[in-house]
């Protein structure tokens, strides 16, 4: 019964995501009616050439990127909440985003110009910064005396604070890039193109796929390390795979979109309320909800002050926050 309910909910969420993405492509400085949108997406013979250009060159890659990033952040958030058995855990909890922020700030401040792996200079530095930070946090936490998830959490928080201090210092020291850095830190999808989708896609999918495969080990870890070990789970190896996969997904997401908060925190909570705590269903549901939320937030971010736009991170926190508080108040006992 529960299984079937979850399957139905997953299908409903998939259909909703497609509708939300379609709506997102319709809205903007030029409104495209549903019928025109469909023919533009299909490049039908009767499609308006301007619409085809708007849809294929501007809105489709942007919407796809928002959906992918939202899905990756939510999947990583669900994995971290399960790994740390902590409802406050989010994708940024082990320092990936602070590392990305420092990398990006350095690149912007010193005018880095070399890219690699398809990343431009700033995303490349952010990607590298995020991965390096996760690696350092992991090594410090796992080689310490009482290696546990708590040491990962603490090492991530401590290193995150250090890196944030460095970012602040750089911003004050080199005044000019202030606006550029700040808007990057708040996250957004303006001027994102197919290029960004192509660059991030393999990393995002690898990370999300690996996390989904780890669903059953995560279930075992919910019962505590002892219980998981007694089921024959090699705890350290499982932790390494989880941290590496989530770190990869978050690093790639942050590299192409900046630091977007909140989606990775609330999507897993809503998903858990819908399909339960078992990660085999929680992971895909979180990904679908995260994608939906971020596409909605991005649509809002680029239409509310049209033709200007605001960083999507402001929207996710400003709208996601009250929504989450409402859920917490009305269904708090089932969420936490």
């Amino acid at each position, binding site marked *: 019964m529960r299984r079937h309910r979850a399957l139905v909910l997953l299908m409903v969420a998939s259909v909703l995501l497609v509708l939300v993405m379609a709506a997102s492509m319709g809205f903007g400085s030029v409104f495209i009616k549903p019928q025109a949108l469909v023919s533009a997406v299909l490049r039908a013979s009767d499609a308006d050439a301007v619409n085809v250009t708007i849809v294929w060159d501007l809105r489709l890659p942007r919407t796809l990127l928002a959906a992918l990033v939202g899905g990756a952040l939510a999947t990583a958030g669900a994995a971290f909440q399960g790994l740390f058995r902590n409802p406050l855990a989010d994708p940024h909890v082990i320092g990936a985003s602070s590392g990305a922020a420092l990398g990006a700030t350095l690149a912007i401040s010193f005018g880095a110009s070399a890219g690699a792996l398809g990343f431009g200079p700033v995303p490349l530095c952010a990607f590298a910064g995020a991965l390096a930070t996760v690696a350092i946090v992991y090594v410090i936490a796992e080689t310490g005396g009482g290696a546990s998830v708590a040491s990962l959490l603490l090492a991530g928080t401590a290193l995150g604070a250090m890196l944030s201090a460095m970012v602040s210092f750089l911003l004050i020291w080199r005044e000019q890039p202030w606006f550029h850095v700040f808007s990057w830190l708040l996250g957004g999808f303006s001027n994102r193109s197919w290029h960004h989708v192509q660059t991030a896609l393999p990393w995002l999918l690898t990370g999300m796929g690996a996390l989904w495969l780890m669903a059953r080990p995560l279930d075992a870890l919910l019962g505590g390390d002892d*219980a998981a070990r*007694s*089921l024959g789970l*090699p705890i350290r190896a499982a932790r390494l795979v989880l941290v590496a996969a989530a770190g990869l997904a978050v690093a790639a997401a942050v590299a192409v979109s900046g630091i977007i908060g909140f989606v990775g925190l609330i999507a897993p909570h809503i998903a858990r309320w819908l399909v339960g705590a*078992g990660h085999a269903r929680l992971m895909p549901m979180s990904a679908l909800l995260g994608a939906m939320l971020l596409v909605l937030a991005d649509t809002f971010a680029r239409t509310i002050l049209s033709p200007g736009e605001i960083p999507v991170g402001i929207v996710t926190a400003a709208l996601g926050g009250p929504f989450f508080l409402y859920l917490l108040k009305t269904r708090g006992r089932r969420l936490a």
Partner: protein
Amino acid sequence: MKAEKTPDPILEARNLACGYGKCEVLSGVNLDVQPGKVLALIGPNGAGKTTLLHTLGGLLPALGGDVRCEGVSLRGRHARATARTIALAPQRVTPSAWPLSVTEAVSLGRAPHRGWFMPLTHEDRQVIDASMARMGITSLAGRVLSTLSGGEARRVVLARALAQTPKILLLDEPATYLDIKYQAELISLVRTLAHEDGLAIVLTLHDLALVSLCADSVALVANGGLRMTGTVSEVLREDVLRPVYGENLEVLSHPKSGMPVVLPKIV
């Protein structure tokens, strides 16, 4: 006694030292666990009963000496291989804020057999159903762990251990949180699993009143080692227990079975 041939132990500790990192809790432990028998580990709070149980189950690496399961050392053995033979029901039930459903929790017991990535087979489902039926939790299948009472949650943990279809069952304080009805059910289940299904069972008990009801032999853990191993009537004696637990206990003879029953003595 010598005339009766004792079967080979399925699990044995030889000069075993156990503890955490550099902190040794127990040393020089020699212990044989026989199939079809129930062994109770008793001892004061903090004596190291759980530490010993976890080392016997391969959850903690031995600091010295060796644990051998079916003649093979647990050292360097793959955790999953160990979990196919030895199941441990931990003391703490579920520290998680977002618990699984009862079925999901019990299903995890198949992971040592099926692996972490393969879907469960029809046979796995049958084992899961049978384990749940055996613990009387079939009607709880769809409930989530956080909504269960302490005793119900404890039975879920036991059902998961049974779903591992182990040869050796290690139970850490299985009677905790159980009211007297379920204590009685638990004790008869433990005896059935050992005496009829042939499992080797090791359990820790802090309630000495239950020891003679379920155990075939008793090991007394105290002062950094095994103080004594023997039958129930050899270990449950005032002159053995008082040096360890203090003077405020007395050993009575059960009016029906004649077995020793240890009770606190109120002065």
